């Protein structure tokens, strides 16, 4: 049993961090230091600096701060509000329209910003008081914000997919292409669910009263602020898929385009650039320090033989590939109760991916399956991570029970899509194969 001791030390370090609210970056790094000091010896310690530097010199990750910067510029230049005003008027006259609009807005914001679900909840929360005031039931008002925001893990340019691509050493372009169909499928199912439910129960999702609607002409006027941002995002993704620019270069073009679009709308000023710079620096720094800690953690996990032990156990227990997937998916659900998504990707992908590859599955497919699963974990009652976050920012009359009731149908839809991806890999792989050709 002694070979299990290093893993035990590492995992209890992690548990210690969860209980004490110690930042994940330092929890991961210091538990790895203690484990390596005991089990490998003090001569191994310089790995702390080399691992941090290794993360800093990752070519793939340069796309991350650029996408974050692009999102910050778009957000600060008021694109979010424009989008909201437009969706409100476009879909408001439908039963359940505001909820549907919220799904779409949260999905689009999530796609643009690629930051964690919690960030999107803050933006989506603007929509909640408006929906409640319109007479929407809590059960149909809360779910769309959470479910839409979680799509950010899946829809390009997802930061999580970039980090996955770095660990798994697969093309970011293929991952982005693979995330699109499942993302659209989820969006479509969410909107259909809201539409069907509010058609039969109009009292929980009334249409916008006619006196609050605006004529067609004004609706079109509302789109003017959105045309350029939509063009930018399409150009960024288009150039990646067409293979004429690397994801990093495309991200730079996106960031430049966002600045240009702000300038054309006469919203570009010194304050905006400064705010966007500071915010992007803080978000990128926060993510990168988790990656520093996590790279120390996983390197010691590997050097003390943790990877081999875990995969021996999984392969020993599971006689069929399907059981391997069940073990992985259940592990992810449990971890989703405790860990933020970046830590979760950093410490589970290096363990699971070799097993998946050995079984002959495609790492791009697994990446998209992984993200679909992770976004579900954050919403799964009773402990899903974002649910508590939602409770923190929602108006006081919203109880934890309201949040649970509201999210369950969405979690069921997500589960169905996870199953669909598991049994029909073509949902993920079709688009990358069409865009980039067969490998």
């Amino acid at each position, binding site marked *: 049993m002694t070979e299990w001791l290093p893993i035990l030390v590492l995992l209890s370090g992690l548990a210690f*961090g*969860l*209980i*004490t*609210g*110690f*930042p*994940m*970056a*330092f*929890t991961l*790094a*210091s538990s790895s*230091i203690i484990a390596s000091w005991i089990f490998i010896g003090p001569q191994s*310690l*310089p790995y*702390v*600096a*080399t691992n*941090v*530097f290794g*993360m*800093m*010199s990752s*070519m793939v*990750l*340069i796309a991350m*701060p*650029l996408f974050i*910067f692009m999102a910050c510029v778009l957000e600060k230049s008021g694109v979010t509000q424009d989008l909201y005003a437009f969706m409100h008027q476009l879909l408001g006259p439908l039963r359940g329209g505001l909820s549907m609009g919220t799904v779409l807005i949260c999905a689009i914001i999530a796609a643009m910003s690629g930051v964690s679900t919690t960030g999107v909840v803050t933006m989506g929360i603007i929509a909640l008081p408006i929906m409640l005031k319109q007479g929407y039931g809590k059960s149909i008002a809360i779910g769309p914000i959470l479910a839409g925001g979680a799509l950010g893990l899946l829809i390009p340019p997802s930061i999580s997919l970039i980090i996955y691509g770095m660990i798994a050493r697969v093309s970011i372009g293929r991952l982005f292409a693979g995330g699109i169909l499942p993302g659209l499928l989820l969006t479509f199912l969410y909107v259909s669910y809201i539409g069907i439910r509010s058609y039969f129960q109009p009292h929980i999702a009334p249409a916008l009263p006619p006196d609050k609607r605006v004529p067609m002409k004004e609706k079109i006027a509302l789109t003017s602020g959105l045309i350029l941002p939509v063009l930018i995002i399409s150009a960024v993704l288009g150039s990646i898929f067409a293979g004429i*620019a690397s994801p*990093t*270069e495309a*991200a*730079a*073009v996106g*960031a*430049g385009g966002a600045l240009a679009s702000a300038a054309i709308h006469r919203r570009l000023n010194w304050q905006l*650039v400064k705010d966007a*710079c*500071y915010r*992007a*620096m*803080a978000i*990128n*720094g*926060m993510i*990168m*320090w*988790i990656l*520093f*800690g996590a790279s120390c953690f996983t390197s010691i996990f590997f050097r003390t033989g943790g990877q081999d032990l875990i995969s021996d156990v999984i392969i020993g227990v599971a006689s069929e590939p399907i059981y391997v997937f069940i073990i992985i998916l259940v592990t992810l659900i449990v971890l989703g109760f*405790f*860990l*933020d998504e*970046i*830590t979760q990707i950093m410490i589970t992908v290096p363990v699971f991916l070799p097993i998946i590859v050995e079984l002959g599955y495609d790492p791009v497919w697994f990446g998209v399956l992984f993200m679909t699963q992770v976004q579900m974990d954050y919403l799964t009652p009773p402990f899903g991570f974002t649910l*508590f976050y939602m409770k923190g920012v929602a108006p006081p009359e919203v109880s934890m029970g309201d949040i649970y009731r509201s999210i369950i149908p969405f979690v069921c839809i997500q589960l169905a899509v996870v199953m669909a991806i598991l049994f029909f890999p073509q949902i993920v792989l079709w688009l990358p194969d069409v865009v980039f050709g067969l490998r």
Partner: protein
Amino acid sequence: MKRVLAGIDFVSEWSGKLVSVLIVFIMAILLLEVALRFAFNAPTIWAHELSMHFFGAYSVLAGAYVLLHNQHVKIDLIYLRFSTRGRAIIDTFTYLLFFLFIGLLLRYGIMIAWRAVELRQAVSPSPWGSPIWPTKLTVPIAALLILAQGLANFIRTVKLAVTGKELT
């Protein structure tokens, strides 16, 4: 004492704000590369490598600013159930682990930076082969900055844990 702590806060604030400009440089370099490649069919050998150096410095040097603004991701479902003073007592102990990590990062950061200077290490494999020491040097600098901010936070935390009053 108060002025020392305020001074550390000031340094962290401005170190972060200063490096935040690098993202504009990274963007500009890559845009230039794209323009040169498409318009003049003349890609550079240095654009991607230079942006990698900038990215490294940009990421690691943000640490102190993020710590100052308390933005490092933590899982605080249990932590938040304690009183302010209870949290300060917990933090007093967890900060020791923070010092362990950052102390080692400083020590071995100096070591890898010094070795890069001594051996004239360059980026490889690469057609440009730029020297690697400036970026490696940012590791101990960042460790020093975040260590100072951690120390300032630690002093405030201990004061709060012992007396139950915040250091104003």
